[in-house]
């Protein structure tokens, strides 16, 4: 409201923050540009090796496909559920929020222990394939972020009036959901989807322990022999998260900020 100069202590803290956040990124970039022969700057060899590695393409494709599958399943599962709970069973909402906290509180390592145990007896087309087991795990992992994004989205619109208006004009449940409700929660759904994308593209714990070759385990494998390529891949991974977050900010512009943390540590 009132014009004032930035406080000196604020400058100090912000510079500290900038240094702490940027130095590892810049260092990674410089590191990835080192030449394999001379260990000196600068060479694009690491990058050219990556793009010629078919494993790079296959793992990143697998991660991306998994992300899309997780997003699709999550949306199909949670949009109607959250809609129904908001419309008809508002008393269940706290229960659902509590459930959504479970994957958040339970460490992924514990989750994977539980899941591997639970699905041990499952048919091999499910248990042995990333599209089955891993996607299921990721839907669970993404549940809190998807739920809270959708929950916020549904809360920001007048659900009852929209539904009643749509039905009084002759629309059935399906039409109401797809033609009336969905366009109104699009931003929330997109927000949840981008977060899910970021999670799945970076998820290492579950993928590696259940021995699937997605993108993050691939970086780990590369690191064991080729540090410069690993740095390049790390940077690339960072850019993927950046893209997802930037998309999140862009779709959510001018709206209540969706949840922004969905990490896979």
């Amino acid at each position, binding site marked *: 409201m*009132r014009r004032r100069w*930035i*406080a000196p202590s*604020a400058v100090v*803290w*912000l510079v500290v*923050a900038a240094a*702490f*956040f940027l*130095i*590892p990124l*810049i*260092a*990674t970039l*410089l*590191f990835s540009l080192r030449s394999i022969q001379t*260990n000196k700057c600068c060479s694009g060899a690491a990058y050219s090796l990556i793009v010629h590695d078919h494993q790079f393409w296959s793992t990143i494709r697998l991660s991306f496909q998994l992300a899309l599958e997780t997003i699709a399943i999550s949306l199909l599962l949670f949009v109607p559920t959250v809609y129904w709970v908001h419309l008809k069973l508002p008393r269940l909402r706290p229960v659902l929020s509590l459930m959504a906290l*479970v994957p958040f*509180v*339970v*460490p*992924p*390592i*514990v989750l*994977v*222990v*539980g*899941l*591997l*145990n*639970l699905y041990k007896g499952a048919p091999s087309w499910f248990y042995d394939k990333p599209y089955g087991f891993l996607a299921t795990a990721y839907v669970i992992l993404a549940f809190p972020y998807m739920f809270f994004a959708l929950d916020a989205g549904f809360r920001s619109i007048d659900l009852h009036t929209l539904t009643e208006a749509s039905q009084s004009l002759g629309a059935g449940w399906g039409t109401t959901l797809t033609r009336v409700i969905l366009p109104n929660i699009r931003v929330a759904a997109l927000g949840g989807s981008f977060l899910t994308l970021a999670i799945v593209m*970076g998820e*290492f*714990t579950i993928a*590696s*322990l259940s*021995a699937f070759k997605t993108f*993050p*385990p691939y*970086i*780990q494998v590369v*690191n064991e022999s080729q*540090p410069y390529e690993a*740095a390049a891949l*790390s*940077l690339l*991974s*960072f850019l993927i*998260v*950046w893209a*997802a*977050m*930037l998309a999140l*900010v862009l779709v959510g512009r001018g709206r209540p900020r969706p949840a*922004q*943390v*969905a*990490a*896979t*540590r």
Partner: protein
Amino acid sequence: MIVGAFKNAHGGATLHHMHQIVQQPYRDQYWLTIKVSLITAGVGSFLGLCIAYAMIREGTPRFLRTILTTFSGVAANFAGIPLAFAFIATLGTIGIATTFIKDHLGYDLYAHGFTIFGQTGVELTYLYFQIPLMILVIAPAIDGLRAEWREAASNLGATSWQFWRYVGIPVLLPSILGAFILLFGNSFSAYATAYGLAGNSVFLIPITIGFYYSGNVVSDPHFAQALAFGMFVVLAVMMLLYVPLQRRSARWMR
């Protein structure tokens, strides 16, 4: 589903596993994991709070806030294997920062006991997602600090320090405690980052669980489940400590 997993951990000669996980070396590993979590949550909360306040306070240009918030969204999510390598590239034995400091400042970090693959290294790396997470979760609380409170306090004769002592910190305390516990859990359950960084040198409990589970080493799923159950207990104890503290600090809200 998760409960089911733990029931199996009990199945058969259960108490044996439960007894085992409080023995060495696991007791030390739990303790190390808790210590790393407490330190990174504490330091992360403090630094995150200071940075978030610097970002929000009057006088700081608005665009800096937008940049920092977006960046925090990225950094809080940029964890796991890639983060580990970013830090290895920076502060590893031949990392950019390590060589820079050695060549230009004449100080050899590794000759003085530092290693990115040790406990300090892991903690430093964890801060890279802990601080941004703190910034994200504490920013709304700082936004809630009204300018009127500051002004009323100074009007009544309080210095800036006295304002923070009597009003600012007490008002933020419930949020800070909540954020701290979140950061603790965040660090406690971190697996990928530590694995990528120091999989063979810093024995945190999640890494040990991974070893027992992956089958590369001695595969003993039941014991891994017992260890996982132990993690669960630690988190539950933290929550039990947290709830009354939170209640006390938020007395004035009810």
